[in-house]
């Protein structure tokens, strides 16, 4: 359920991967490359990861979530490499018996991902390129 991949991400596949007959609720979050950042027109992004540690930290996030909420399944897929505007950089999907568990766990997962999962992006615009830092 955890991947760091150069392939395009699919919310539909994420949803179907976490679906179970015991789930009443399914929440997803998708991070998308925006056209504008800090007032600048973005041409594209380059994502890079420390893949083995990224997967280890995604597992840690799952464990933290299971300690807090009753969920069924969680999936986190992060894309790396060259991303165009409008493409998904990260997809998170959580299934749970009830809606609050799914929604709260999904929101928690993206917050923690920003904090502890080693993935970087280089923003390429007409001004040049910049590595973008934590919490952005």
């Amino acid at each position, binding site marked *: 359920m955890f991947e760091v991949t150069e392939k395009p991400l699919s919310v539909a596949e994420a949803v179907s991967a976490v679906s179970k007959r015991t789930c009443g609720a399914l929440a997803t979050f998708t991070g998308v490359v925006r056209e504008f*950042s800090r007032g600048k027109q973005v041409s594209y992004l380059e994502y890079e990861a420390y893949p083995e540690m990224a997967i280890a930290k995604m597992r840690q996030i799952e464990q933290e979530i299971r300690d807090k909420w009753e969920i069924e399944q969680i999936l986190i897929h992060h894309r790396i490499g060259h991303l165009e505007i409008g493409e998904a950089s990260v997809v998170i999907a959580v299934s749970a018996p009830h809606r609050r568990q799914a929604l709260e766990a999904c929101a928690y997962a993206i917050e923690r991902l920003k904090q502890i999962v080693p993935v970087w992006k280089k923003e390429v615009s007409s001004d040049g390129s910049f590595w973008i830092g934590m919490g952005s």
Partner: protein
Amino acid sequence: MQVQVKLFAAARDIVGQGEVSLQLTEGSTVGDLMEHFFTRYPQLKAMAGSLLLAVNREFAERTVKLQEGDEVGVIPPVSGGGHV
């Protein structure tokens, strides 16, 4: 002892490579290892305050002692996801 250092993003750009194998004296810490890089790469030293370090894929303080075969990750401020 030998350790493997992995550098990412801006840190890799400064050092010019993503992976470095280093011979250290026994008892060296993560901090000692970083001093090695800071001496050679002043630009990396300039971002020392914001660098995170990992040993064997777990975040680690600079006081942690390294062991033969350890993998050390040099992690500039992390940013996953989109501009979100």
